[in-house]
């Protein structure tokens, strides 16, 4: 399956545009040969559609595309409208235009709250989780993708089964565990428990998003020819050496896909992120706590909430624009080949 289908032949309706279709010409002539019919604009349009159905399909396509673009992008635009409206005018904010112009909201979010710290926490947790998932996923992907052994399918199924359970089921034991004081951890963590540390978010999220990466990496690693690995082994490297020096570099697109998907998933996650810290930035509260915190005790700073949302969306939005092909190919290999 090719990642980018742009090089494919045009489908359904593209054909008529390239080569003059005889039926189209006939239909057009027929249209010109009945001048005595006095038609209104709509009637004429409908007649054209009937004589040439491809036109109707084409029109439907453009209308649908336009509709999808408006519905997906308009909420972001409106978020910007709210962010730019000064706080006192918020009740007059329009649907399309802000009531006033106050770009200072994008600076206020960093002075009212240490919002940069929240975003940094999220960013760091997502990055560390991505590295950990890629490392463990590579080992598992190598084993499942390149080795034949008894019980392989059963174990693979077991990996898949973990993703059937709701996070709430994992949360209960983890919450107890992370709130327990463990003396061993005292030199590392002042409180001795994992609550209010980045580990409390990073550990469960890495585990939950690991199966998808294992499937993606397994698919890519299994496609590397055995001869390349054998050559590396003959040269004297270990299995691990062959994995990280030969197989991983050759599967770079797959590794990038798994990485991008994991990063976005961890950065966007709500459940564990909202429950594993007390919400203070110095206690590693992630970005979502920062946004909700603008809902203060005395007044709700709607324009700052909107501005903070826009700032927090930027990392993932940039990632989507840069890596969209990887995301598409990753979801397709991850899901369809399971």
């Amino acid at each position, binding site marked *: *399956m*090719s990642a980018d*289908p742009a090089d494919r032949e045009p489908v*359904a*309706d*593209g*054909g008529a545009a390239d080569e003059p279709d005889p039926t189209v010409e006939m239909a057009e002539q027929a249209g010109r040969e009945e001048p005595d019919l006095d038609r209104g604009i709509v009637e004429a349009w409908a007649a054209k559609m009937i004589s040439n*159905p491809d036109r109707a*399909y084409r029109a439907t*396509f453009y209308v*649908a*595309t336009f509709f*999808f*673009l408006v*519905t*997906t*992008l308009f*909420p*972001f635009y*409106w*978020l910007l409208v709210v962010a730019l409206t000064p706080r006192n005018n*918020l*009740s007059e*904010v329009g*649907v399309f235009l802000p009531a006033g112009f106050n770009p200072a909201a994008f600076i206020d979010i960093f002075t009212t709250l240490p919002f940069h710290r929240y975003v940094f926490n999220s960013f760091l947790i997502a990055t560390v989780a991505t590295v950990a998932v890629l490392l463990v996923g590579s080992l598992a992907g190598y084993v499942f993708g390149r080795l034949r052994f008894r019980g392989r399918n059963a174990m693979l199924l077991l990996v898949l089964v973990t*993703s*059937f*359970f*709701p*996070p*709430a*089921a994992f*949360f*209960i034991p983890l*919450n107890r565990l992370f709130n327990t004081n463990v003396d061993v951890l005292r030199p590392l963590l002042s409180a001795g428990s994992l609550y209010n540390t980045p580990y409390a978010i990073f550990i469960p999220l890495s585990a939950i998003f690991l199966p998808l990466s294992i499937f993606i990496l397994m698919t890519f690693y299994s496609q590397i020819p055995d001869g390349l690995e054998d050559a590396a082994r003959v040269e004297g490297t270990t299995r691990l050496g062959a994995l990280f020096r030969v197989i991983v570099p050759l599967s770079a697109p797959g590794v990038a896909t798994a990485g991008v998907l994991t990063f976005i998933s961890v*950065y*966007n*996650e*709500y*459940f564990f992120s*909202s429950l594993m810290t007390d919400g203070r930035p110095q206690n590693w509260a992630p*970005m*979502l706590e920062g946004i*909700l915190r603008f809902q203060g005790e005395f007044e709700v700073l*709607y324009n700052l*909430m909107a501005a903070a*949302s826009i700032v*927090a969306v930027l990392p*993932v939005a940039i*990632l*989507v*624009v840069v890596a*969209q092909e990887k*995301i*598409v190919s990753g*979801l*397709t290999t991850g*899901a*369809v*080949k399971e």
Partner: protein
Amino acid sequence: MSLTDSLPFVEFGAPFLQQALFVTLAFAILSVVFETLIGFGQALVLDQDFYGRRWVRVSIIIPWAIPIVIQGMIFFLIFNPTIGFGTEFMQSIGVFGETPLASSDDSFLIVLVADIWKTTAFMALLILAGLQSIDRGLYDVAKVSGASPWQRFKYITLPLVAPALLVAMLFRTMDAMRIYGLIDATAGCETVPSLTCLVIIALQESRRWATASAVAFLTAVVISGFVVVYLLALRNSDGGVA
């Protein structure tokens, strides 16, 4: 709340649990149906070749990559009675009351729309994968035989994309059954109680570990019920997923 403190912890007669079960099931079924239909439409658009396709694809994917809290925030603001335009509009067509985010019915609709906005893109991507694995030669043959685009869709696209469609629906149903973050960020768990909401309420308000575990387990059971149904449907569909 009428969850019990002793065995069996959860009683089906308890109104709050019935409510949560109903909300979760209704949400899962409605959201998956609408996301499948709209996602199919988006996938058909993305499957065409046209100028600017790359940017249309980015625009359609982008809601999927939005953090849940921001998705919630957008719809929280849209349906906020003082600043959002959503409440006024919905009132003018007579659907919503004064404060939609405080009423269970209105909030359910808001959560549903917010979820459809974000996750339709995910469906579209998985269905697109199915569409692109279809052999293009089949369409040429159909065209030569004089099949209309609608016939090509009905007799080629739909049957061949069915396995991918079912897998995508399975993933979405599993995910929709765990809805929590979106509710927490918009209407709140008291207004629209889902099963996961119930777990958190039981834990945070009354520290009932056993009750919370029982509800979490119940969620897993309901999800596995859906999984079995989908797997049976997948087995019956001709293509099969290797």
